[in-house]
């Protein structure tokens, strides 16, 4: 899907300061070498299978299917991965790559904290130093994950600038990379930022759709009719979509965080409300005002609370290959509780956005049709926040 300059249609590119160009070029060169290196791929597969608990289950959600009375619903259980989310797939790949490149220090941004925890985990495993940048607002929303990162030996830097959320954490991590390139790899957590990150992260996450395809063919002997995933930057979604892009019969549906609704300013639904722009190293869709000032977005989910979307998603939208639908806070919280009660699975509030759309979509489809929902993470981290949302104050 990528051309040589890291473009996906008009999107993507490398809009970074000159001071970072050698770093991104060095990364691209190293990646192009190692992605075709059987030894690297073998090591990564071993890490996936022996450490991260891959392949993850493709679970038939029978009760949910019966309750909704339409399409058959399968859940891709990325929540069962080590560290509790899909983020580990990318992080193990990048940490291994960084190590091969001779880097001794990983820096990362994090929103909900899942990517930060995954980065801290990989750093601990591989004996690297780790510094995680996290919006101060998010360190409060996700206090448990802050503690987990520290426990794993990482330093967590609360970012106070701007809206003190994911976008500011990305800016701060990029800035830190500018100051210290020699020994440091910036382990970007989503399919965003300057080339080659959208491609690297996509490739490491594509294991999700590779497995879904094998598993659904084994279970059902056919491809699904729709694959659903939540989209912030879009890494779990592109991972779940990638090996189905050429299969025109499979609908690819990204579920964006609409916050309080796409007709309000308190939303993070980038494709639904944004315009094409240039930010954080890439051309893509961004929530912005008429002068191109990046909008202070909002979602109950810290992991989807980002004003942009990965360039490959922007392209899939432009060419009509994938659909992007808005899901509100209310709908996501309902789905969070629904899945817990119906299937005994507590999803991450991010993933609950995809579950919410499955609840709407399944009844409109036939019983002979199949939906796969990518359950990108587990929801333990969200329990206190959801309790608060429901007016209950619990102490973690």
């Amino acid at each position, binding site marked *: 899907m990528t051309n040589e300059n890291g473009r996906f249609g008009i999107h993507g590119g490398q*809009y970074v*300061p000159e001071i970072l*160009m050698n770093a991104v070029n060095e990364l691209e060169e190293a990646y192009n070498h190692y992605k075709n290196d059987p030894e690297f791929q073998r090591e990564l597969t071993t890490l996936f299978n022996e450490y991260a608990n891959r392949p993850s289950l493709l679970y038939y959600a029978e009760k949910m299917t019966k309750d909704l009375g339409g399409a058959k619903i399968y859940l891709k259980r990325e929540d069962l991965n080590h560290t509790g989310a899909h983020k580990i797939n990318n992080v193990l790949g990048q940490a291994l790559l960084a190590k091969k490149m001779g880097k001794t220090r990983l820096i990362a941004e994090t929103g909900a904290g899942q990517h930060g925890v995954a980065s801290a985990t990989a750093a601990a495993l591989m004996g690297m130093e780790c510094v995680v940048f996290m919006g101060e607002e998010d360190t409060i929303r996700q206090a448990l994950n802050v503690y987990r990162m520290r426990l794993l030996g990482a330093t967590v830097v609360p970012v106070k600038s*701007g809206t003190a959320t994911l976008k500011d954490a990305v800016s701060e991590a990029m800035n830190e990379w500018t100051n210290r*390139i020699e020994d440091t790899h910036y382990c970007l957590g989503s399919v965003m930022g300057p080339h080659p990150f959208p491609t690297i992260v996509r490739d490491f996450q594509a294991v999700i759709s590779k497995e879904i395809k094998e598993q659904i063919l084994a279970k059902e002997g056919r491809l699904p009719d729709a694959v659903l995933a939540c989209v912030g930057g879009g890494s779990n979604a592109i991972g779940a979509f990638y090996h189905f892009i050429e299969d025109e019969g499979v609908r690819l549906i990204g579920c964006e965080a609409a916050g309080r609704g796409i007709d309000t300013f308190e939303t993070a639904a980038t494709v639904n409300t944004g315009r094409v722009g240039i*930010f954080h190293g890439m051309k893509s869709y961004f929530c912005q005002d008429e002068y191109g000032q990046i909008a202070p977005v909002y979602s109950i989910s810290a992991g989807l609370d980002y004003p942009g979307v990965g360039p490959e998603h922007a392209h899939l939208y432009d060419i009509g290959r994938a659909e992007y639908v808005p899901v509100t806070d209310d709908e996501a919280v309902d789905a969070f509780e629904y899945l817990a009660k119906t299937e005994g699975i507590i999803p991450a509030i991010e993933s609950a956005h995809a579950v919410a759309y499955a609840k709407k979509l399944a009844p409109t489809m036939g019983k002979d049709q199949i939906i796969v929902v990518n359950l990108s993470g587990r929801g333990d981290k969200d329990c206190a926040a959801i309790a608060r949302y429901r007016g209950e104050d619990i102490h973690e």
Partner: protein
Amino acid sequence: MNKLKTAFDHGKAAVTFLTCGDPDLDTTAAAIRTAVENGADLIELGIPFSDPTAEGAVIQEASLRALKNGVTTDRVFDFVRELREDVTVPMVFVTYANVVYSYGAERFLSSCRDVGVDGLILPDLPYEEKEEFLSVCRRYDVALISTVTLVSAKRIPMIAKEAEGFLYVLANGGGSRTADEAHAALGQVMKTVREYTDIPCAVDFAYASPEQAARFAALADGVIASSDAVKLLAEHGSAAPAYIGDYVRSLKNGISV
């Protein structure tokens, strides 16, 4: 004929950066006039951006102060048009690619020519991505300024060869260095640069004193004080122009010896 090069006609050039509208447009106008009266040869005027990812805290905060005060791209153009009635020193805009892209490159650069802005610096637009903006800049005779850094290494020849207006030489960042180390690294960079271009070069460094600025200026054609005036604005607000005048005077005197 683009008049940017004339900024380097009066000895080593003193380049001053100000964020437009920090803390308000009247203060920015007063600061620019005072800077020019005290020897500033080139003004870099920042159009505030919500997320100036390549900047440190000083300029980030200035940008947010300006935006909070309602500064927009349209108001910046009006401001420069008015300023140009008496201020003739070369001026360049510094902003982020999205500000120009969102306004429309064509509309943005034709407005630059109309109000008399001579160049454009986009910190998040590297050599590889410049084409999209360069063709429009050329059409309106606005120089798209290129940057080299102390870690640009083998990228310097291609950047220097195609540089227009003046070359922005960033001597901060890319690792921690003492002033002496940065000075030595700058010497190496300038040696390579000079093999590929004869356009003026201005050096951006966190100068500790006019004497230090003079040492760096000796290696190039001018110095860029990218955050000093902004710091004075953060400290003194609308009373800052007098301090900025003193600062620019001592800088210009320092590099002129």
